[in-house]
């Protein structure tokens, strides 16, 4: 057996084992509500045929995209200012550190109060959830820039915006990208929770609605699998970003 196929088998084995145990457990327990893997697959096909799967995935991705991009647009500049100017750090850090540990889920009531039931509430929650890891990552990235690069740039009389664009941003980029990857991961976790309460579309809604409207646990589990698959795909995209030449220098020497 080739090395590649051995690796493939090693990776597939736990998944196959879980599916087997799952199937046997459902059959052995005689559960009428909990679905077998085959029933989940059938539910998934059913959702896809009705066009519901695509609709919910698109709805969730739309909210994540808007909330996340808003967070990137604000967190990166704010983080860079915090990292560069000690005074800005002193001014904003207590706020950031104080708000950061509050789970975005805890904000749900306030989000509904402020933004009502609709797309804005989950977008706000996603913004909050991804904003903090990105601010912290960006600020740390700027603060830990090796002094020798700044020294060289000062020697060539770089200052102001030119210094920022040519040295500070590229030097901090690896940690900014890592913050962005963490931020997107959190955003994807939070959108599901937000959609269970504030809206009537998206993968979170699909799960909670499938349970409430007739205990369709086959669709609940199908929804969970789709959430996992999309989250995995998003992470692969972000990992690609970490392999760019502009970024990976930080992780290789």
């Amino acid at each position, binding site marked *: 057996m080739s090395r590649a196929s051995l690796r493939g088998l090693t990776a597939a084995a736990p998944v196959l084992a879980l599916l087997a145990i799952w199937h046997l457990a459902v059959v052995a327990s005689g559960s009428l509500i909990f679905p077998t893997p085959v029933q989940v697959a059938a539910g998934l096909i059913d959702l896809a045929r009705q066009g519901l799967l695509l609709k919910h995935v698109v709805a969730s991705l739309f909210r994540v995209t808007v909330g996340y991009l808003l967070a990137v647009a604000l967190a990166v500049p704010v983080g860079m200012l915090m990292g560069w100017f000690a005074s800005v750090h002193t001014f904003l850090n207590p706020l950031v550190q104080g708000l950061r540990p509050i789970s975005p889920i805890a904000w749900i009531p306030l989000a509904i109060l402020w933004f009502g039931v609709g797309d804005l509430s989950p977008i706000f929650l996603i913004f909050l959830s991804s904003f903090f890891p990105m601010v912290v990552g960006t600020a740390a990235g700027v603060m830990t820039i090796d002094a020798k690069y700044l020294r060289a740039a000062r*020697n060539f009389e770089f200052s102001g915006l030119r210094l920022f664009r040519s040295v500070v941003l590229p030097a901090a980029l690896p940690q900014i990208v890592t913050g962005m990857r963490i931020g997107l991961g959190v955003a994807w976790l939070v959108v599901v929770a937000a959609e269970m309460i504030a809206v009537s579309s998206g993968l979170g809604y699909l799960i909670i609605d499938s349970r409430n409207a007739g205990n369709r646990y086959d669709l609940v589990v199908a929804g969970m699998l789709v959430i996992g698959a999309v989250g995995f795909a998003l992470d692969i995209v972000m990992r690609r970003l970490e392999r760019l030449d502009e970024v990976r220098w930080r992780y290789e020497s």
Partner: protein
Amino acid sequence: MRAEAPVTPKVDVRGLTKTFHPRGGPVPVLDGVSFTVGDGEFVAIVGPSGCGKSTLLSVLAGFETPDAGEVRVDDRPVREPRREAIFIFQQPSLFPWLDLADNIVFGLDGEAAAARRARAAHYIELVGLQGFEHAFPRELSGGMQQRAELARALIVKPEILYLDEPFGALDALTRLRMRAELSRILSVERHTVLLVTHDVEEALQLADRVLVLSPRPARVQHVIEVKQSRPRTLSDPELAAVKTALLRELGVAP
């Protein structure tokens, strides 16, 4: 009125004094360091380790301010680092996110892309790095990185080079090779050079004058002129005698 036209030195160092204040109490590092460097002169600064050589060079280049005294270049006081005087440190500071060619043109500005490329090609050749234009710093050896560092400095046509143990992190063989290379490059492009080193042979092979600093706090303890023509061989009896005198000055020869 003076009879002769006054000769303004390139670098005029007057009474530099500096004290650091770490937790354990004040540490005087520079104690009235004064000397001058002529235009196009190569001056080496040697001294016992920890004597304040590096601090001195940092002050000269404008990265640190002295407590008292001043540094004048072309009779103008130095207050901050300037592109006319490029500092090269023991640790290469090539930007890891740029490839070699982009690193070398980093300090150029206000030039058309074609002119930049042509200039970069010239300096890449001068330091012998042809073929590595698109390599990233992490893909280059320590010696190659220091060559690139030299090219990045030379391309902006600095009048002064401040070299702080530039070959100190390299292995012995590479260090010897880089010493010869530096000699060759400086014969092509004239610069005023201040080299901080703990390597007495390096100082004697490269410099017109060697300043010996005292143990901390540093003062100029002794100045040795090296008059031998270049290229120099250290086995030359006169140079060997200078070396012995220098080592004796540093307290490591009887």
